[in-house]
């Protein structure tokens, strides 16, 4: 309800402004008896073109009364006054005493036309719908006096640059730090990865090929695949483990080679004849199982993992012996 009242009053104020415009300066200053203008002054009587001035008006009125001010910018526009409103009314109750309220209305104005002006009247509305016109002071707007005899033309000044504050810089600094940190972490990750270390720099303990192979073979043995009719899976597991072991031990790309090619590439390696033959047999049996639906005998299945383990152990022992021999030769 109160809101509706304000809307109506605002409409009245706009109408009042229009009426004021229509009647120009013919309207006499009117104010109700309960309203008293205690002060109405400008912060400066005279300003240079473009300078700003505060118009301050202190009104005194009964507490129960209200006034609604018409926007001063509209008043100025309606009167086509050479005034510019920078900040419109700012109302502030400065005192309430014995049922009397004191209100201060402040306006920030400027002008870009030189001259001596009487500012347009302030327009307000009472709750009863009466229009109130309040007196306004004079303002003297002057130009800068230039001594044309002594005047020296100066070049146009460049754009003024304000110093960048730390607050403005803060997001950029944070972004730069974050990028630096990310770059460092990436560098450290690549470096540690190459050095076979984990993210925190601790060396990653990589098991030697024979340990990995023996672990895998033990796992296969424990899974009891051939006992459950999964011979193909069992032999694939055994041969894949051996191929990975051969690849890691001898650097032969065994995963991309056929059984015959693997055996061919091992001929020049130091492998005992017995182990070589056993591996060949194992690969041949595995190929039969994998590609020819061959069902091996129980003893063949039982021998597959032990044969693979024997090959891994024998080749590992051979390597140890070779290293020992090499060490002795160097001494």
């Amino acid at each position, binding site marked *: 309800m109160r809101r509706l009242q304000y809307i109506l009053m605002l409409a009245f104020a706009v109408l009042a402004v229009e009426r004021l415009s229509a009647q120009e300066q013919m309207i006499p200053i009117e104010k109700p008896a309960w309203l008293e203008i205690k002060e109405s002054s400008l912060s400066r009587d005279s300003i240079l073109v473009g300078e700003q001035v505060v118009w301050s008006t202190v009104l005194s009125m009964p507490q129960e009364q209200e006034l609604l001010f018409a926007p001063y910018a509209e008043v100025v526009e309606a009167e086509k006054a050479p005034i510019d409103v920078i900040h419109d009314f700012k109302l502030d109750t400065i005192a309430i005493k014995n049922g009397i309220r004191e209100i201060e209305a402040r306006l920030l104005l400027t002008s870009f036309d030189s001259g001596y002006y009487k500012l347009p009247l302030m327009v307000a509305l009472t709750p009863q719908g009466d229009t109130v016109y309040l007196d306004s002071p004079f303002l003297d707007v002057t130009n800068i006096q230039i001594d044309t005899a002594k005047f020296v033309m100066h070049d146009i000044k460049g754009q003024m640059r304000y110093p960048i504050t730390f607050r403005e810089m803060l997001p950029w600094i944070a972004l730069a730090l974050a990028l630096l940190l990310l770059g460092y972490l990436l560098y450290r990750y690549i470096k540690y990865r190459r050095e076979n270390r984990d993210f925190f720099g601790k060396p990653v303990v990589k098991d030697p090929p024979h340990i990995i192979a023996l672990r895998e073979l033990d796992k296969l043995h424990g899974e009891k695949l051939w006992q459950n009719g999964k011979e193909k899976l069992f032999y694939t597991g055994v041969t894949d483990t051996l191929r990975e072991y051969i690849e890691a031990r001898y650097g032969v790309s065994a995963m991309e080679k056929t*059984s*015959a090619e693997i055996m061919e590439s091992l001929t020049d390696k130091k492998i005992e004849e017995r182990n070589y033959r056993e591996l060949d047999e194992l690969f041949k049996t595995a190929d039969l199982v994998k590609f*020819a*639906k061959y069902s091996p005998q129980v003893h063949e299945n039982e021998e597959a993992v032990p044969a693979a383990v024997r090959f891994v152990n024998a080749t590992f022992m051979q390597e140890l012996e070779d290293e020992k021999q090499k060490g002795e030769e160097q001494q």
Partner: protein
Amino acid sequence: METVNIKELNERIQKESAFVDIISMEMNKVIVGQKHLVENLLIGLLADGHILLEGMPGLAKTLAINTLANIVDAKFNRIQFTPDLLPADVIGTMIYSQKSEQFQVKQGPIFANFVLADEINRSPAKVQSALLEAMQERQVTIGDNTYRLPKPFLVMATQNPVEQEGTYPLPEAQVDRFMLKVVVSYPKKEEEKLIIKMHNAREFPKASPVLKPEDIVRAREVVKDVYMDEKIEKYIVDIVYATRTPEEYGLGKLKDLISYGASPRASISLAMASKAYAFIKRRGYVIPEDVRAVCYEVLRHRIGLTYEAEAENITTENIITDIINTVEVP
């Protein structure tokens, strides 16, 4: 689910493939060296696929197929492709008989079990198309009638890799119809000495007919039965796919070198040729070695090279080597 008795199949193949050794023996009587050529001729014969031969003149290409025809006791015809050759000269035509006052069919030289299309790239596209269509359909239409070509039917076409002037290179789509492309190389020194001796002898050795065409047709049925495990099928598909999308197989460097990869016909041919190879090796099942043994012959004419590859002297053989050295063997 299909059940395969491998033991029984192996025994059957041992029995049926006995003639392979006889053929090889008879061929070796006449052909010195060229083991690779003879082996691929047998693969083509058993896998029911045609062969494109590339090699210099005088490398026993004609002699090889002629000898094979003698051994199988089959009909052999040779067609010399020339620029003025017409399709009718290959497949046959209708001629008017004044005696019977009727048009009669005159079958062309393509009506033979073994046909040697010598220097196929010397004839224009219309003649090549006539031959290749007959190769694919295994039948020829003359006038209103369609005639089945005899079984077995094997075409061996030759191309000279050196002379390119006045030739009509086979389009990719037509080259794809050859199951194998075999590159014939020069014989070794010792082999060449032996060739001279053979020619200086009073009588040139002759292969004896030891087989009937029906034996080959029956052997082809057995070849089809050679067991191929799913793992091998996957291996074949991986190899063929690696020619199309090498980057998926860690072969990103080949991406800019291949303009087009092998077609699904390559997968079929690779599978069939692997089976035939296993049969020649007297096995009832295919192993990865079989696939690798025929890989070059099946794929070399089915991979297109980019200008970059040609500029860097990279051949399809280089690409196939990279692929088979990268694709994981089952």
